[in-house]
């Protein structure tokens, strides 16, 4: 009988209605929407079920008490969809609200820009014809009426960010933007009051409109990747078996665990939380925690860490408060240090802004002083200075980097790389050294069948099907690797610690330890290939087979490391595993510089040494022990199977079994960074042309409008090139390894 499932932490109650969010696998067409919504709405008690096709999510509402969260999930399962409950992350809801706010600002700015342009064009063309000064004034006043409230509303994202930066005594790109907009509006208002010929309302509002376009696109891209990351996290969401007060077992999501809970960890399961063993004895595979591939025996009183795999016996454990284990303590302490060190990195955009803003403002001031000395009136001198400020339009400059970021992160997304940090893309472009962890990064996280070629396929099939009945992690690996029919044999019996047996075609078959299958000693040579190999025996009647299971390299690891080396990246392996386990892998990959048996502090030290030698380091790692090193490196990647803390500190996460996304991320990052610099130079050239004209006092509102939109378009079009050549890396990887394309189908990326 299945134990009860308690999903109450995911359910939100509001006024008699319960609400649950689910990430659903396999939504692919219009029919799915109807099947899911129709199927659920028939269930009594359900008020509403709404599929969000863009995010592959489902929101369900029901009357309190009518249903349990588990009922919804099993109902979906009956319809044919696997679903995973999740509580929307705070960051995600905040971003959704922010994106909506940006879109509102964009709409207002767009409306204002169009209507002001409607009024400005007649003024520009009418200046030559017979427009009366009264009509011109009327148009200018109308423009002011539209522009002032619109800018007050739509400019807020920029004004706020500029104020925050100024309060911290720093300059960012929003400071010159805000200053330019405010001055242009103020000057136009004054000029209108003086019945002057030129007003710059259109420039100010158009500037806001273009910049908001860039911001919104940037945001939309980030929101999309965050939604996919949220779904992936929900799908990974594991269950823990908790003892309730009465002693019975209840399955609860790992997120619901609190310190002091007593948990049961069965053989073959992952330890769901950090804690100590209360009773039971077993061996744990700590490879996700420390990188060590040899199993560690544990007994009552020993500490265990989330992510380890339990091999033999059932364990009862008590959850301890986060960060009380010695290893966790150490990792947290190192992380805190590494994270503060990293925040000193200055983004390319902010660096440009710090150069740009003082220069522009100095130029404007010098222009005013110059005109005064040359004998112009105070009014004319100030007008010219403000024209300089408007025309040096931070527009191109402020779009130069976000536009590339949007296109670049889109390309990364298609390559199976999900960005955590917005500026990771430009840091990826600066990398010259790649540091790789071994266990789970160069190798696949699960053990694989290593000697399939030497065995009879029929025996593999039978053994793999028999393995389906066992909970042992190695049996699970065998089943995953080979079983074509995923139907376990009937009458299969598991003998804990020994193996599993079942009659196949009337003859007893056994899968398990060598002794269990009646094999005296393993033949020579099989074990000596690599130290971390484990043998499983299979006997069917008088036929025998021996399966060698071990950590194997990711399918394209050799090709990708070779490609990286060819492109001039320095390669290093920093592993927490024993030297005997690391050496053969380093040899196969042709990586001369490797270090083994490192603890987290040593990994950081190794990375700091590389940094001190002037290298920009990309760290790729998955274990808990890698988390501080990931935070210390210039930029970091981790595979989707990585430990939770590790993933949170990586700048990007890559999907699938292949290592190809690492190469692609570097290629796309390099190209994006090159385009960013190119865009900045384009903006500089534009300014070099426009500023002398403005200083000379020849700028009219018409010229300003043309120059502004022209330069913005130019950098945006240039940014679009970031999507093109990223695919080249994909081609390299795909040629050498056909496994890569499969990774997208797993995630149902739209």
């Amino acid at each position: 009988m299945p134990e009860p499932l308690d999903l109450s932490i995911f359910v939100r109650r509001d006024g008699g209605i319960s609400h649950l969010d689910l990430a659903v696998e396999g939504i692919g067409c219009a029919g799915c929407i109807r099947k899911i919504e129709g199927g659920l709405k028939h269930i009594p008690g359900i008020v509403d079920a709404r599929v969000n096709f863009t995010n592959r999510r489902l929101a369900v509402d029901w009357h309190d008490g009518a249903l349990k969260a588990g009922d919804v999930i099993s109902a979906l399962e009956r319809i044919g969809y696997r679903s995973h409950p999740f509580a929307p992350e705070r960051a995600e809801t905040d971003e959704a609200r922010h994106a909506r706010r940006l879109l509102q600002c964009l709409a207002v700015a767009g409306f204002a820009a169009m209507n002001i342009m409607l009024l400005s064009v007649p003024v520009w063309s009418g200046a030559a014809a017979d427009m009366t000064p009264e009509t011109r004034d009327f148009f200018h006043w109308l423009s002011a009426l539209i522009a002032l409230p619109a800018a007050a509303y739509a400019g807020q994202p920029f004004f706020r960010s500029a104020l925050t930066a100024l309060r911290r005594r720093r300059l960012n790109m929003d400071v010159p933007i805000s200053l330019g907009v405010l001055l242009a509006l103020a000057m136009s208002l004054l000029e209108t009051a003086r019945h002057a010929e030129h007003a710059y309302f259109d420039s100010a509002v158009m500037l806001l409109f273009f910049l908001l376009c860039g911001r919104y696109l940037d945001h939309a891209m980030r929101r999309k990747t965050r939604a996919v990351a949220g779904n992936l996290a929900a799908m990974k969401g594991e269950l823990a078996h908790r003892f309730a007060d009465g002693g019975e077992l209840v399955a609860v999501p790992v997120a619901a665990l609190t310190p002091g809970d007593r948990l049961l960890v069965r053989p073959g399961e992952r330890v769901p939380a950090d804690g100590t063993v209360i009773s039971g004895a077993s061996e744990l595979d700590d490879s996700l925690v420390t990188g060590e591939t040899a199993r560690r025996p544990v007994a009552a009183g020993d500490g265990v860490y989330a992510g380890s795999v339990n091999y033999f016996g059932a364990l009862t454990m008590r959850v301890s408060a986060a960060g009380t284990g010695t290893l966790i303590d150490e990792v947290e302490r190192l992380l805190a240090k590494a994270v503060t060190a990293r925040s000193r990195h200055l983004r390319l955009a902010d660096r440009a802004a710090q150069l740009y803003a003082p220069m522009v403002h100095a130029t404007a001031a010098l222009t005013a002083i110059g005109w005064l000395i040359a004998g112009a009136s105070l009014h004319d001198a100030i007008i010219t200075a403000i024209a300089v400020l408007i025309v040096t339009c931070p527009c191109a400059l402020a779009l130069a980097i976000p536009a590339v970021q949007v296109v670049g992160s889109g390309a990364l997304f298609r390559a199976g790389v999900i960005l955590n940090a917005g500026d990771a893309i430009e840091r990826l472009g600066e990398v010259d050294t790649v540091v790789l962890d071994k266990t789970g990064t160069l190798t696949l996280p699960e053990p694989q069948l290593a000697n399939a070629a030497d065995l009879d396929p029929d025996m593999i099939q039978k053994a793999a099907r028999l393995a389906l009945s066992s909970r042992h992690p190695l049996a699970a690996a065998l089943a995953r690797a080979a079983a074509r029919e995923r139907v376990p044999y009937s009458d299969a019996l598991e003998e804990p610690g020994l193996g599993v047996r079942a009659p196949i075609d009337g003859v007893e078959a056994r899968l398990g330890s060598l002794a269990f299958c009646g094999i005296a000693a393993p033949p020579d040579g099989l074990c000596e290939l690599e130290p971390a190999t484990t043998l499983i025996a299979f006997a069917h009647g008088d036929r025998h087979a021996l399966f060698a299971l071990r950590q194997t390299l990711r399918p394209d690891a050799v090709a990708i490391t070779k490609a990286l080396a060819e492109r001039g990246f320095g390669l290093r392996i920093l592993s927490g595993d024993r030297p005997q386990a690391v050496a053969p892998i380093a040899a196969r990959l042709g990586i001369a510089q490797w270090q083994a048996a490192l603890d987290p502090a040593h990994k950081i030290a190794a990375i700091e040494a590389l940094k001190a030698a002037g290298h920009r380091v990309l760290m790729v790692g998955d274990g808990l022990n890698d988390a501080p090193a990931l935070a210390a490196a210039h930029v970091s990647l981790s595979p989707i199977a990585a430990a939770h803390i590790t993933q949170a500190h990586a700048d990007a996460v890559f999907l699938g079994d292949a290592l190809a996304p690492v190469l692609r991320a570097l290629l796309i990052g390099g190209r994006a960074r090159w385009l960013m610099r190119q865009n900045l130079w384009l903006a500089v050239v534009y300014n070099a042309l426009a500023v002398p004209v403005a200083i000379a006092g020849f700028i009219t509102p018409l010229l300003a409008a043309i120059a502004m939109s022209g330069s913005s378009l130019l950098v945006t079009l240039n940014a679009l090139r970031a999507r093109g050549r990223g695919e080249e890396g994909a081609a390299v990887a795909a040629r050498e390894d056909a496994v890569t394309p499969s990774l997208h189908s797993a995630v149902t990326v739209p």
Partner: protein
Amino acid sequence: MSVLAYLVPIALLLGLTGLVAFLWSLRSGQYDDIEGAALRVLQDDDIDQGA
């Protein structure tokens, strides 16, 4: 040119109506699932109800 005195405000008012309509549609969540909306329009469950 006195015709402008009411033509321009009318033009602005029309534009403003469009803006308000957009903001309303945004607020009522019509942009939350753009891909889904493209597919839902193809569903003919409304015909089932009539039959």
